[in-house]
């Protein structure tokens, strides 16, 4: 079933009401999620959401209105209301706005999916989470939690620039966590990552995770952490596992290269960026091993799509090449303001929210080493992996991360397990200290990226591999 006609009506109504540009996204989304606790299903929920959001540009001012009604009359009313809201925006106007061209017209795209996640029986999915949490519980977890989430989204996009694009995007993922209670503290281990691994993929992704097989080890490691020595305090050589490095990329590179932040559009909430557009193409962000790409076309990665929510086709771009900052995540209007000629990174988290600059798949290209080689070449240091906490300042410079597990590295070998490992630093100084990088890349998914007002939850992907950093401050404690 197509909803192009209703979207077209909304756009036309906005134009008739005075807009010089308008677009409409209609989305129909089904969701399903389950949580399990200690070998029993805790919560099973499903959802259906359908609606349309219209964006209208009147003069230099935007307006947006959304309703959960896909009738032609509702679409027309929403188009008119978006234009009226844009007219109110002119009370406090800005400079003239242009939109860079997108090059797309009519198109259709669907994400690759071998096994439809919503087609897998609930009993099979329940058995998986029950089995994984029961296995962790039997192996000594005080609390064993499992989760899967599924999103199945159909989109229809029409704009006054001639776009007519439909997409079908299926996403899913799952994970299991074992927690143990010690004397006044809690230790936790998660597989395959904090909150699980997610992708723009079918259920084959979840099948590949082997939750049940890995759950006992999570419980055993969490229990072992209770008596492990604390992570030492001081400056040392730090080796990060790929999962933690994925979040490091997300927080200290992905958000920093969002053009709306650089332009000050997020200053009051999400914050700005330490990056200055005048230094695009010349600023040293990291060591020469640092090559970051923006690539929404990676099959299976959580930030993948065919077209963004402004109709720009998925295109791979460099963000950092040989350590030099060369690219940004941009939308049609922000790119025009910045004098750039590309967009392609604008999405909304649903029909009721305004599309905005979001990460797609922002990841690190593989390096020449392996994790084993990195450890073998480290005389004294700390290895950390699996994120436990994250915090970074509003310019994306000063960060502090905590990981679930650490190990000392002595004379080229992993030594004792370390508990409560944390590290802190300043973004460019940290990235410039990266001197070894593995080729063992995994595209980690982050399904909980918060941004915007009203708040939106974005889905992003981050190819990452283990890497080594020198002179990093570790072991920060309260």
């Amino acid at each position, binding site marked *: 079933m197509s909803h192009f006609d209703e979207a077209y009506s909304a756009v036309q109504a906005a134009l008739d009401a005075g807009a010089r540009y308008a677009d409409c996204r209609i989305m129909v989304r089904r969701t399903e999620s389950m949580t399990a606790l200690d070998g029993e299903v805790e919560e099973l929920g499903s959802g259906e959401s359908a609606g349309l959001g219209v964006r209208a540009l009147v003069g230099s001012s935007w307006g947006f209105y*959304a309703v959960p009604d896909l009738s032609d009359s509702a679409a027309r009313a929403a188009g008119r209301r978006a234009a*009226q809201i844009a007219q109110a925006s002119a009370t*406090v106007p*800005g400079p003239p706005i242009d939109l860079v061209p997108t090059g797309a017209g009519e198109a259709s795209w669907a994400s690759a999916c071998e096994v439809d996640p919503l087609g897998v029986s609930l009993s099979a999915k329940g058995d998986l989470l029950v089995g994984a949490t029961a296995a962790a519980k039997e192996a000594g977890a005080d609390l064993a939690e499992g989760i899967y989430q599924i999103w199945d989204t159909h989109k229809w996009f029409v704009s006054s620039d001639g776009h007519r694009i439909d997409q079908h995007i299926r996403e899913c993922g799952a994970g299991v966590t074992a927690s143990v209670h010690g004397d006044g503290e*809690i230790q936790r281990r998660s597989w395959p990552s904090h909150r699980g691994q997610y992708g723009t993929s079918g259920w084959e992704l979840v099948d590949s995770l082997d939750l049940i097989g890995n759950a006992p080890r999570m419980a055993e490691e969490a229990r072992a952490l209770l008596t492990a020595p604390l992570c030492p305090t001081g400056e040392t050589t730090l080796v990060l596992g790929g999962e933690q490095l994925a979040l490091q990329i997300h927080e200290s590179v992905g958000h920093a290269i969002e053009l709306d932040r650089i332009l*000050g559009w997020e200053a009051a909430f999400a914050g700005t960026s330490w990056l200055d557009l005048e230094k695009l193409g010349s600023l040293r962000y990291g060591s020469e091993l640092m090559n970051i790409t923006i690539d929404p076309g990676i099959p299976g990665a959580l930030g993948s799509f065919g077209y963004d929510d402004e109709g720009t086709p998925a295109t791979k771009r460099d963000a950092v090449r040989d350590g030099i900052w060369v690219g940004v995540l941009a939308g049609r209007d922000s790119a025009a303001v910045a004098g750039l000629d590309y967009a392609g990174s604008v999405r909304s988290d649903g029909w009721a929210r305004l599309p905005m600059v979001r990460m797609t798949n922002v990841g690190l290209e593989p390096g020449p080493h392996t994790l084993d080689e990195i450890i073998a070449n480290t005389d004294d240091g700390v290895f950390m992996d699996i994120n436990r906490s994250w915090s970074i300042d509003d310019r994306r410079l000063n960060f502090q991360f905590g990981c679930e597990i650490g190990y000392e590295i002595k004379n080229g070998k992993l030594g004792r397990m370390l508990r409560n490992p944390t590290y802190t630093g300043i973004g460019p100084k940290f990235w410039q200290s990266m001197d070894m990088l593995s080729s063992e890349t995994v595209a980690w998914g982050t399904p909980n990226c918060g941004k915007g007002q009203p708040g939106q939850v974005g889905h992003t992907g981050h190819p990452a591999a283990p890497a080594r950093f020198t002179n990093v401050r570790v072991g920060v404690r309260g």
Partner: protein
Amino acid sequence: MSIDIIRTGAELELAARVVELVRRAAGPSAEAEVMVQHDAEALTRFANSMIHQNVADAVTTVRLRLHLDGRTASGATTVVDADGLRGLVERTLAAVRLSPPDATWPGLTPPTPLHRSAGYHGSGERSGLDFGFDEATARATPAERASRVRDFVRAAEGLETAGYCRTTYSSAAFANSAGQSVEGRTAEAAMDGIARVNGADGVARLASGRLGDLDGSVLGARAAAKARAAESPVELPPGRYEVVLEPEAVADLLDNFSVFGFNGKAYGQKQSFAEIDADQFDPSVTLVDEPLGSRDEPAPGLPFDDEGTPRESLVLVREGVTKAVTHDRRSAAEVGAVSTGHASPASRTWGPYPTHVRLEAAPAATEPALPPADYSGPTAESARPLVARMRRGLLITDFWYTRVLDQKTLVITGLTRNGVWLVEDGEVTAAVSNMRFTQSYPQALGPGMVMGIGSESVLLPDRWSGTRYAAPALHLASWNLTGNASG
């Protein structure tokens, strides 16, 4: 433009219809609870001193939880025509039949009248239609929000500004197959903005049940004064500092106490610091969850939760002694307590937690107050007596990106934001660049650690989830700053 969003009875009729659909499809033994919520949100956002995003939406969501033959499942939809409702019931029935046995099903809320608001007395036995609800706020137009933004920008007198003005309206009804049937409405307005000069930011933030309480000129002037006072900051070494936290920073403490400490599920799973009847806080600390409002405030939330349990004020901490945590029906049953009316769509997974917490102001003056019109300098008026008593320490406006390092001890790391100053002998002597902290929140407010509490509570919107907190300024003996701009 007037938006026709004020509806009467529509949600209750819809909820009853879904309960009936379940009865027809699954028979009288099915236990069904239905929450129907119509939310209209409008937010006018500005940056670089211009309105750059201006949005509105109106959504009706139907949430169904079903317990049948010892099994439980939930479903939700925004498609509320006959097909959509029928689909919701069919999907949820299919899910419940495939679900495993639910041994801890706590049963449905029996017919129970709503509690009366402490500040408003219009609530009826079953209907909350006069429950402290400001219709003018619900009907606010884009022009009304834009005019407040214009006033904020003008009052900053040329400084770069950014922020939002927001109005929200919710009309909700709950019905279950046990006969509970309640409805209510609420509206809220909030404004949150910064002014910026030479890399220094100042903030002003306020929530109210009435848009009419928000004055963009007052807030813009306050933000600008703080920004100007924050210019040319010095860098201080990490270490433990005596601090005065302004209400914006205190709200972050209340938020983390709520989500991780007074959360009934976390308490039941022994992941919370809370111990009932233990002296966990300084005797000057009293925390109350007030979903119905108080002291002539319009009700900030709906008068019932997602299980139809009536909400009421709940003392969490009285004079330093932890007295309660919050529960939905399931978390309550698991620890032998009763629901406190804190069920939400996510409470089964994330736990029920308080969303309208007030830290009681010092007894001398406990009236909530707006920022003073003659505001100048870096220090909020309510914090000035506390600053005057500080020999050497930091005045901190706001916290940012706070995350839990250890949930049991509630060790949090985060950063300062929107203005920090060094105070010596009761006087602000220098602006300070932002610093990172790593601090146990309960320890910071522990016995003997609170040196003073401000005399006015400020209503503040949460920056993410729509909850809100009432916070006075706080003078604390020690705060662990663990990093500065250099790392």
